[in-house]
């Protein structure tokens, strides 16, 4: 079995690429952190890697809406490569800004669902705090295959409120919801749901399950020392999420 390689593109303003690489390496993958200019010049190609991971940060300074200009890259410069990757069911994960880009590029919630957006938080403003995430029961996404219980990790964003045209059409595409520490429904309550997302949805998958996007940062909780409670809490280490993606392409 060869070690799968994760492509991590870095746009101007991307900033959580190193943690994302660390998380995938901990899960047994190798990683390539590549400036987007390398992809544009053809010096790096999606086809040479087994997983695509879009990291958090402020690509292009969040100009014209968070993730919009990175989405434009996906839709213009790399449209063919992205289309090919989706067709061959390449696992794709977008975290925070990466999620925003996947949504703005139309890859999430994807064809067959109404449009969605990640709008300004309610209450407004950038928010950095730890949240608890429940994986959606019954999801067939390979990314969620090994997750047993709730995950805990920080959010750090100002534009993470999921809003959709048609909630029904999102149905089977929910990946994670914000829940209380004991797993109870957030019911829209701040700060359990930190940004006012509809139905407390924190992450989405596409219809195939291979494309995952979420606002919180699971890559920031893959070591026990990442947890601010340091042993005073139920855990919720997120390594299993990255391991699931790696396992899916290692089989």
């Amino acid at each position, binding site marked *: 079995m060869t070690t799968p390689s994760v492509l991590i593109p870095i746009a101007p303003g991307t900033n959580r690429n190193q943690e994302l690489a660390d998380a995938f390496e901990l899960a047994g993958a190798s990683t390539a952190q590549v400036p987007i200019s390398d992809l544009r010049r053809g010096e790096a190609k999606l086809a040479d890697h087994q997983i695509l991971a879009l990291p958090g940060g402020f690509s292009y*300074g969040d100009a014209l809406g968070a993730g919009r200009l990175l989405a434009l890259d996906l839709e213009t410069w790399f449209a063919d490569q992205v289309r090919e990757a989706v067709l061959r069911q390449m696992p794709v994960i977008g975290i925070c800004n990466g999620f925003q880009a996947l949504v703005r590029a139309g890859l999430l919630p994807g064809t067959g669902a109404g449009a969605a957006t990640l709008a300004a938080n309610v209450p407004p403003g950038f928010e950095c705090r730890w949240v608890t995430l429940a994986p959606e029961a019954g999801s067939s996404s390979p990314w969620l295959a090994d997750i047993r219980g709730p995950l805990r990790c920080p959010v750090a964003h100002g534009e993470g409120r999921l809003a959709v045209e048609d909630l029904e059409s999102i149905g089977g595409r929910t990946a994670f919801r914000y829940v209380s520490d004991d797993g109870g429904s957030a019911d829209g309550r701040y700060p359990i749901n930190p940004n006012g997302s509809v139905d407390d949805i924190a992450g989405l998958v596409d219809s195939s399950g291979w494309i995952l996007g979420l606002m919180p940062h699971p890559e920031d909780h893959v070591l026990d020392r990442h947890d601010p409670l340091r042993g005073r809490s139920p855990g919720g280490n997120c390594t299993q999420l990255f391991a699931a993606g790696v396992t899916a392409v290692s089989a």
Partner: protein
Amino acid sequence: MPDSPTPDSASSGNDQHTIAIVVGPGVDDPSPGGPAAQANLFGFEVEAVEECRLFHVRGPDASLSGDGLEQLAGSLMADRVGQWWIAAAQHESFVAGDGRRLVDVGLRPGVTDREGAELVRAAAELGVPIDAASVGRRLIIHGDLDDGQLDTLMTRALHNDVIERWAEGFLEPAFTDPGAKSAGIDTIALRDLDDDGLAELSKMRRLGMSVAELRTVQAHFASVGREPTDGEIETIAQTWSEHCSHKTFRAQITLPDDSVDGMLKQYLRAATETIDAPWVRSAFVDNAGIVAFDDEFDLAIKAETHNHPSALEPFGGANTGVGGVVRDILGVSAKPIAITDILCFGPDDLPLHELPDGVLHPRRIRTGVIAGVGDYGNKIGVPNIAGAILHDASYTTTPLVFAGCVGILPRDSHPTEPQPGDAIVVLGGAVGRDGVGGATFSSQTMGAETAEIAGSSVQIGDPIVEKGLIDVVVAARDAKLYHAITDCGAGGLSSAVGEMGETVGAEVDLALVPRKYPGLAPWEVWLSEAQERMVLAVPDPEPVLALAKRWQVDATVIGLFTGDGRLKVTDGEDTLVDLDTTFLHDGRPRLGLAADTPVTIRSTRKPADIDLKTACLALLAHPSLRSHEAVIRTYDHEVLGGTLVRPYGGVAGDGPADGTVLIPPGISSGKGLAVGIGVNVVLGRYDTEAMAWAAVDEAVRNAVCGGADPARLSLLDNFSWGNPTDPETLGHLVAACKGCHDAAIAFGAPFVSGKDSLFNEFVHPDGRRDPVTPTLVITALGIVDDPEVVPLTGVTAAGTDIWLVGPLNGALGGSHLDDLLGEDLGGEVPRPDPDAAARHSEVAAAIAAGLVRSVHDVAEGGLASAAAEWAFSGRLGVELYLGSKPTLEVLFGEGPGRYLVEVEPAQAQQFEELAPSARRIGAVSAERMVRLGANLRVTLDEIADAYQGGAIQ
């Protein structure tokens, strides 16, 4: 003032058009800091202020009509869910009506507009090319306002004239004129000026130079037989400014019965030299101090102030303050890994009629500064891990913004010697007129008219460009591609190239320097600060330029280091500067100043009739001591994944931590670093020497609480002071420096860097002077050998023992209790304590032995506040055995070297052996209540209510 409408400029030549698009729906912020609430502060009846986005775009017809426009606006301006777009004129016809005013606000030409630039780039990629774009906002003000009221509201609350313009109706877009002509080089007639003429020259050009200094310049140019150019005069003014040369801290000072041979040399550097710490790798000589971390890596640390710009344009000032200190760290080849910020504001509830002309309301400054600090750190991806927010009446006219940064670099990886023949490479943003005169501006006092004349000194940062600089510089460092590096701080290229070329000499051709827009005079290009730029001395430019291209950062060769000891700057064929670097850097006549010896005799304490419980809760709600968690949540303190102790912790993440701890990314030793901050503005009013000692002690205490080894600490000093030409003000500064010196030696903790911000004084139109209360921020950086044993924030388990390290009684003079009462009741202030150092070591030893479950330092508000915060953080009870009637000194007194420590009863003996000065003083209980002696009880709900201003979660 509103711009006058000029409707005919809506289209210009050829098939180029300018259109305005509004994107809605507008957003109304109904919060107490929102625009409607601000309007109501003025007594205007405003129900809501909706804010829409406003885009001005210039380009060919094909892109700005029909399908082209549909694509441009639909894909790049409005979100496909929940937003719409419409031509601005059409929007106006729908929305305008009785009881509504429509106001368009846009940036002034030349102010950084990243979104506008990105829109131009993205439009080209979409195949709908445009020429220029700028992004502003349209306000729909719901309320009956007359013209005067609208003008007041816009001017005082809803726009900032320093960077923005506004208009009802058509707003001229902020496009710069591509055909603007550049001014040339002027010669300054200096030779025949007398003292009055020299003073007038300094004032007219805003040089901030004394007549004595200009006399020296006059003599120099007389000796070389010519007159200086405008560029030469400006270069000398910048290099000799307070900001760049620290002339006050180097001045010979005469006191009534003493003299000081330079405060920097006699106190701050002297302490560092006396301690002679082996872990200090570089102190005071570079952009930042450098200290050893582990066997492979060093840490760089620096803190800066950005007070004047933040007073005028709070967001931009604070934003570029963070950007500047991050660049200082990059300027010693270190990768930035942590940001700190200490913010000082006037009272939130200051009545408008008490607000002096030319001053922004403290609430507006607070909102803007916090947003500016958060924006830069969040976007650049460096965690903001430590800070404080302080309030004092003097901060109304002189708000203070301290920003610090820690970086990491492999040992011996920072080269510092440019070689003759090295190319001068500029990395980063192009030069504009914003940022001209930053150093001289920040070295002068402010007045009501300052906002008008200083507009060009205030900038908007671009953290995305600086993030690129980090990537390029770190890669270039690792590949050993440069011989020296520095940042373009205040003074721009003149200070960066000037400092680097101090010994070898340098030649620059300004024609090669990239500009944001045409029309700049050569001296402006040379002097403009322009954020987000670094200068490198490079033996072979090619690999550096390739690296920059890969990371999408602009890089240009603008000259070379020569070896001839001259600074020569040309603009094409014309010579702007031709100076001997020895004169430039060593020619400044030394300043001589007179200082008074401060009177610090304290009266006996007057009795006060105080209800203990009320006082305890009021202290928890004190504007400087209450929870600032809501602010901290707007800063990313998690990015880089190394944060171990966050600014707020405890079981619910809402209890205040003391020192914050980080495990730097990319290391293998497993060690951590702890940052402690010390600052006490209340003491600054009475005794600056005691204040300095207390601030050093507090910083050390906080670092120790984070698990740092007190035998290996390094310190930063950051002074914000009034006008040092006033002997009383200077006397307080001398005393503070002495306190710093003595405390550093007492704790064996050397200063490795520092910065002084002077002239923090507001001069009213009638000549009345408002100096800032002396404010000193001490930052302690420590090494945590074993992060595993770092104590938790908040008490952890019922049944554990509580120990007090340090005296039971504190001092009430200069305490926060008196600050709360609004009266100096007299009594001694906390004095330097020779035993405090031993107590820091005891606590550290117990932590290192794994005996400390949690710890909290006894700081502002004394034992009562410490116990209450600690219990609240852990959501457990704390009982302190203080007898039936504890005194005010016991409950609220403040003083150095005091801690509360939580220890397992079974480990009492081991703890006592390591901390012999500790006494068992109480226990942790499960009853959700703090008991301070037999009769004073406060519940956790009452604490939460006071501390957070709301019920417990």
